[in-house]
């Protein structure tokens, strides 16, 4: 199912499989004119074949940067300072750019937030999807075209034969995102990273795209990382959730448990700001204050300034993870008491 030689493959509890992707203690810094800022601080994540990991957090929390860094897609001023990114038994941070190019788009693929600007405006949709096939499978023009049209059908783009020769500006937002997804899954990757795939789209289209991603995940048995700031998206599509705040993961849990009993006060605050149908909420409450920018990241708990439950022990030292059961953990000295 997942990696070819995974001993636990086929066991019913997918979460216990050897993970397909395991990010360990990844730290990323940006070199700015004013100095170096650490935007991702020792982040660890795991995701297995057939599972969807929802990576949730506010913008600037480092969720996109974590994934870009894992694939070596950081902008020139970004640097990984420590950590490992184990994918299928290989550390992606140690292999060179040429090897990485062979991997990207083939075994790991990525879908970006704004499909309208993520497609090359002077190339046809068909050309751009075929390119993946040409690069990784060496298909000839005709075969690539045939396969591309199949892919367009697969992601639900009508009139795929005509659409093949059209340019991105002739596509709507939703159709563009479908094309982006077709491009990403062209070589049937083992892992698909979707970075805010629905944020730029209309609400009705959002649901369709999420549906499509879930279907494809099942069909191709991919692992899916879904980056979003929208807990609604998480509830709809994720199996497991990692909550990021100010460059760190603060809580990890299966999706139902997270929504049911959030353990970190930040997670709880996020959930309280969300309208619920399953529970009567008197009023929606926003968390006071704002998330700190990377230059103001402290070494202690970064949520302290906005937290009602902190005490002197919270500042100064980074709160370490506490395992709760086998499936969840939280980085808080005074987690929410489960009643």
């Amino acid at each position, binding site marked *: 199912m997942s990696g070819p030689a995974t001993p636990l493959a086929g066991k019913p509890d997918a979460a216990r499989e050897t993970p397909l992707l395991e990010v360990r203690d990844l730290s990323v810094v*940006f070199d*700015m004119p*004013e100095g170096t*800022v650490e*935007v991702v601080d020792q982040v660890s994540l795991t995701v297995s074949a057939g599972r969807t990991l929802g990576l949730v957090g506010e*913008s*600037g*929390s*480092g*969720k*996109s*940067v974590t994934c*870009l860094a894992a694939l070596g897609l*950081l*902008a020139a001023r*970004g640097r990984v300072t420590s950590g490992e990114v184990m994918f299928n038994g290989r550390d992606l941070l140690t292999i060179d750019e040429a090897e990485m190019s062979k991997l990207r788009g083939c075994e790991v693929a990525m879908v*970006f*937030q*704004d499909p309208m*600007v993520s497609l090359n405006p002077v190339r046809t949709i068909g050309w751009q999807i075929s390119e993946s096939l040409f690069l990784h499978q060496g298909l000839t023009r005709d075969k690539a075209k045939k396969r591309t049209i199949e892919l367009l059908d697969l992601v639900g783009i009508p009139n795929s034969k005509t659409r093949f020769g059209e340019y991105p500006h002739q596509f709507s937002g939703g159709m563009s995102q479908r094309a982006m997804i077709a491009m990403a899954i062209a070589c049937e990757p083992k892992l698909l990273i979707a*970075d*805010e795939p629905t944020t*730029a789209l209309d609400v009705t289209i959002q649901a369709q795209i999420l549906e499509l991603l879930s279907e494809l995940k099942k069909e191709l048995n991919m692992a899916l990382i879904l*980056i979003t700031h929208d807990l609604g998206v998480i509830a709809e599509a994720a199996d497991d959730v990692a909550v990021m705040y100010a460059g760190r993961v603060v809580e990890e849990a299966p999706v139902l448990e997270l929504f049911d009993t959030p353990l970190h006060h930040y997670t709880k605050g996020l959930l309280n700001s969300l309208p619920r149908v399953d529970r009567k909420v008197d009023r929606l409450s926003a968390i006071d204050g704002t998330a700190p*920018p*990377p*230059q103001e990241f402290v070494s202690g708990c970064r949520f302290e300034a906005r937290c009602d439950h902190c005490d002197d022990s919270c500042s100064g030292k980074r709160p370490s993870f506490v395992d709760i059961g086998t499936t969840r953990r939280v980085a808080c000295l005074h987690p929410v008491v489960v009643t």
Partner: protein
Amino acid sequence: MSSQHADPDTSGKVAPARRLSLIKRWGLAGEWLVIAAMVYIVFVLFVALFGFTFQPYPHTQTDLFNQLQPPVFMGGTWEHILGTDDLGRDVLSRLIKGVQLSVLIGVIGTAIGAVLGSFLGIVAAHFRGWVEEILMMLVDVQVSLPFIIFALAVLAFVGNSLTILIIVVGIDGWERYARLARSMVLSANQRDYVLAVRSLGLGHFKIYSRHVLPNIMGTLIVQATINLPGVILLESTLSFLGLGVQPPLTSLGQILGVGRDYLILAPWIAVAPGMVIFFLTLSIAIVGDWLRDRLDPTLK
């Protein structure tokens, strides 16, 4: 736009309330090239304004016993620091005089182009319709003829007094301001604040002078800074070719034109004014780029 997540915003955070030197406040820290360029421009302006006070000789004073004297560093005397030309005139004195006229023509010429072009652009944007059509056609005409060819023809056929020269040089580049002003006014007229003051019944003139112009001024000034070196080069080229500034007046290009004939015997006559022009246009270009990047990145 996940690139936004990848670029943590750090621009707003500068060390609070610490007293910064002028250099830092203007964002000049480390920009040595820009600082050097500014110093040179100030120096040239100073020479243009006050050069007459320390000009060693009248720029027209000939000395037939001291023709083609080399500068001090090439074995000449301190009497003529930068040597003399074919008529024994002091090169330094001529340079000072030349800087004066070149800077004068450059600045006035640029101002004429900027005011004329901006005015036409605003008029076009205000009236739209056929007025705008005519303007855009004039722009097409201007673009279709390299300006120096137009200028040479006019100066040769119509005659070249200093006034005509300044006007001709001033016309250069008007179409750039016109286009810029037109498009900016068109978009400004759509903005809420203009619609608001219009609904208050403010007159057109007041709307433009108080609300529209102040908003587009910065961009126009940056454009003028970018155009200035071109205007200075144009004048110097025309004078070099003998169709610009006429004796007894002198400009940098004209001195160079004379020096061209003595390139072997007395290269300093040509090299000295050439260097002055080159460093002047270079400095203005450097400062102009810097200004544009700081004030108005959209102009690129």
